């Protein structure tokens, strides 16, 4: 329990910085701990989303199976997508933003530590609200894209869509708050000398993703508000019976939805751009091109949304324009792939688990990128849209891409976070099973789609030529499940028995590896001065002609914990104290939205809690 060291008129005391145990996690504002909370929560949702996918695959294993009734099947595929996108891949990215970005830029925390905690709690509550339907009245069952007017009360009478509109709204607030925090952190809190063109690539991608989040999330928020009003208060934004237009939803959804795709993939690209140079022992090939292509992808991501709507009858002119913009966005993506291969070229690749996942990312992402070109060409997409070909494509990008990248990051930064190495042998088993399972699950779906199998059907008759590859896909999906069990085993085993990591187990390049593992709460005993890109590498191998600040030629000469030196003795570093208010504020917003679904009185109560939280937050002393 928190050590109470003082009180303030009418509000809770600030928990002491010496708080330990459970309450230290609940009240934490430390970016590294918040990152761990994000990671653990997101991975838990990842397992739930995976189980939903396994159920879907089991139903489709054979033709005309009756294992799942359509009502349940539709909830499962909808929740699988929502869970994987909003509750797994996005927050896993945010987990890395939290853990890695302040360390990479030589900062002691993010710009707004309490806001950071608020983002986490809102994410958790949003995830709970989105999943509440499993216990109370049914989950959303209209697909993650939730095309109106199927989402109106005439066709979605149950509670499922209510959880969708409120859950996503809360998650959106969490994302925007977190993204603002990272933009300010990256712009303002870089260590002296770390110019934008010395910024590590992962931090660059975080900045781009954060800008995308701040601009894309409001679009879906507005659409969700309109839909909430349609459903709860009888407005008619999307009701065609009274003149509303269902296509309006599609435009709003995909104006958000396509940048969202890049929100999901850019963090993984950032991770790969850190891992490949580290293990090849070479700088990233064409740093500037990789950064610029990330910026271009983020910018062009706003101009391609209607390729999700080619079959809605936009007309040949609009279709041609969006086909062209979609073709063009493939260019910066291709450039990145070339640069990654260029990074490996001529290197000395040390074949450790993180680099397996990064190379796996490149190998699989190529397939997803290429299949994307075939549905950028609109007439070709008329056949492929809404088929399993698209399911294959998106999983090659988001599973083969984003998830492989994120696993690469987990293996790469696990030693930094926990101070222990993960098991290499288990890691490679994990990789190979996941790689093979992934290709055998989603590879055949290309064929199923081209052979006419539509998406989102809960069963199919025999005789369509779909039986065999569906069975293969189902069996292989369980291979992926086994690989996840191996990963979990590896994590728990390594936490207890993993060898000590030391500061810099990979001979890495960026500042986070210059401090102890796990890092002390204040990260850097002294804020480092950055003299070059790949700041830590330069310290270890400094070329001697940059700024006349040459260091010793080998890493052995850099004493462990240069910046963490005498870490235990330092008490003069001021760090923010823990706080209850982020949790209380987040809970207030949760009650507002959950209350809307029950009774407006509860919503009003939520508003009170929210105001109480904001009030206490504003008046909280710096320390008791």
């Amino acid at each position, binding site marked *: 329990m928190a050590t109470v060291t003082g009180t303030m008129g009418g509000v809770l005391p600030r928990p002491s910085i010496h708080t330990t145990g459970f309450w230290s996690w609940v009240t934490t504002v430390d970016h590294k701990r918040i990152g761990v909370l994000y990671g653990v929560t997101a991975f838990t949702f990842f397992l739930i989303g995976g189980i939903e996918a396994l159920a879907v695959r089991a139903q489709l294993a054979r033709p005309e199976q009756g294992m799942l009734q*359509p*009502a349940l099947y539709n909830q499962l595929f909808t929740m699988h997508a929502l869970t994987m996108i909003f509750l797994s891949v996005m927050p896993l990215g945010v987990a890395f933003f939290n853990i890695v970005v302040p360390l990479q830029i030589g900062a002691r925390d993010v710009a707004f530590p309490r806001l950071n905690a608020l983002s986490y709690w809102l994410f958790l509550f949003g995830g709970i609200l989105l999943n509440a339907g499993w216990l109370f009245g049914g989950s959303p*069952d209209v697909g993650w894209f939730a*095309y109106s007017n199927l989402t109106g009360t005439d*066709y979605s009478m149950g509670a499922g869509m209510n959880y969708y509109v409120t859950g996503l709204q809360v998650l959106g607030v969490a994302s925007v708050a977190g993204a603002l925090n990272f933009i300010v952190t990256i712009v303002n809190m870089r260590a002296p000398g770390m110019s934008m063109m010395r910024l590590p690539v992962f931090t660059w991608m975080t900045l781009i993703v954060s800008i995308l989040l701040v601009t894309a999330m409001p679009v879906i928020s507005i659409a969700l508000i309109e839909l909430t009003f349609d459903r709860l208060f009888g407005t008619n934004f999307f009701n*065609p*019976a009274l003149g509303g237009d269902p*296509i309006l939803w599609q435009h709003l959804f995909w104006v958000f939805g396509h940048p969202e795709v890049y929100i999901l993939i850019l963090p993984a690209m950032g991770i790969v751009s850190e891992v490949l140079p580290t293990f090849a*022992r*070479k*700088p990233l090939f*064409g740093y*500037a*091109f990789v950064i610029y292509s990330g910026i271009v992808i983020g910018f062009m991501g706003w101009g391609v949304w209607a390729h999700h709507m080619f*079959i*809605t*009858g936009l007309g*040949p002119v609009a279709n*041609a324009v969006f086909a062209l913009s979609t*073709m*063009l966005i*493939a*260019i910066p993506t291709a450039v990145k*792939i070339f640069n990654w*291969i260029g990074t490996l070229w*001529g290197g*000395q*690749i040390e074949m450790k688990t993180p680099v397996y996942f990064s*190379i*796996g990312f490149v190998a699989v992402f*190529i*397939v997803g990128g*290429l*299949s994307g*070109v*075939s549905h*950028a*060409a*609109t*007439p*070709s*997409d*008329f*056949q*492929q*849209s*809404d088929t399993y070909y698209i399911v294959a494509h998106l999983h090659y990008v988001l599973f083969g891409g984003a998830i492989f990248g994120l696993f690469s990051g987990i293996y790469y930064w696990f030693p930094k976070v926990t101070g222990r190495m993960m098991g290499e*042998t288990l890691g490679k088993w994990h990789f*190979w099973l996941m790689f093979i399972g992934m290709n055998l699950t989603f*590879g055949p779906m290309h*064929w199923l789609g*081209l052979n*006419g*199998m539509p*998406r*989102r*059907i*809960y069963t199919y008759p025999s005789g*369509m*030529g779909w039986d065999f590859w569906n069975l293969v896909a189902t069996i292989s999906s369980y291979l992926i499940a086994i690989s996840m069990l191996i990963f979990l085993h590896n994590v728990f085993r390594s936490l207890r028995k993993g060898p000590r990591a030391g500061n810099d187990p990979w001979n890495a390049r960026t500042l986070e590896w210059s401090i102890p593992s796990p890092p002390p709460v204040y990260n850097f005993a002294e804020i480092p001065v950055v003299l070059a890109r790949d700041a830590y590498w330069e310290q270890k191998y400094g070329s001697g002609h940059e700024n006349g600040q040459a260091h010793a030629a080998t890493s052995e000469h850099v004493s462990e914990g240069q910046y963490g030196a005498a870490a235990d003795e330092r008490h003069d570093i001021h760090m923010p104290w823990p706080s209850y208010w982020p949790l209380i504020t987040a809970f207030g917003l949760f009650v507002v939205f959950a209350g809307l679904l029950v009774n407006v009185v509860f919503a009003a109560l939520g508003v009170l809690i929210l105001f109480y939280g904001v009030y206490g937050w504003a008046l909280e002393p710096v320390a008791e």
Partner: protein
Amino acid sequence: MAVLKRCPIPPLLPLVIILSFLLAGCISDDPMSTFSRDGSAASLELDLFALIWWLMVAVFVVLEGVLLYVVLRYRKRPGQEDVLPVQTHGNTKLEIAWTIAPALVLVALMFPTIQGLGILSEKHGGDAINVKVIGHQWWWEFQYPDYGTNPQGQPLVVTANEMHIPAGKKVNLALESADVIHSFWVPRLAGKTDLIPNHHNTMWIDAKNPGEYYGQCAEFCGTEHGMMKLRVIADTQGEFEAWVSAQKSPQPAATGVAAQGATLFLTKGCIACHTIAGNPAAQGKIGPNLTHVGSRTTVVAGFFENNTENLTKWIQNPDSLKSGNIMGRDAPVYKVPELAMTDEDVKMLVAYMQSLK
């Protein structure tokens, strides 16, 4: 694990899978195959896809090949501990080159893309026929405006889930929805276009040869989306004309067991939703038009063969075939105990349905 250590690179699994699809693709003659040239539109779309496909296979082989080479060639070897590789930071000329190269390929692909879009959005006049397709949860309605209307202004030829067209002729489709968004897709004939409430989309199809072409709703439209199938039946010109004239004629009064079924059709409330031309009481518009249901090859939106067994199951307990269907949910005959049907009633209704040729 020794095997894993010796083999650090991804085996060419994706390549093998994709090439095997390719081989399979050449021979796929499945009912929903997009590799078919049975329709002009499908043929055009296949040509564009094939062009992109071969280009992408080439890129795939080169990229994965180089990746594989790099991973094999540049692995860390014993003795390299103290030597750093050359610290290349990039090569601007090379990078500009590999930015421009994909740009040229992709912009080149725009020419067939725009050309295809133009052809696919044409409207056909002359001897083309017109069909209005209306999507319902979860079945298809086809109205033929070219063959006369009844005094209420309704087309005389209205059918459900099976669209007859004359082979070799262009068919203009007007796509509308009675409830939510659906998507009309008959892959062997053409790609898909959505049916959207308050929108008036169009597309055209043709079938080069007579035959039966399978289709299915492609846009998720609610619980029974998976069972919203259809057939396009392409007839010879003569067969098509015969079909039209048969469809135009109203049903004569039923006889025998079928006549008892006709009475039940009235008393059990079926008429509230279903139309049967020639039966003045049956004017419902919510469910499929049943005027010539006995002549159709399938029941329940194209999923089941039209035979006594399936009709019986469907009328007796619709949920047993299609658990989310609206008839089972809303029709009083399945809700109000006084209206419940006996097995005998079901037999009579089945006989009536089968008499509606």
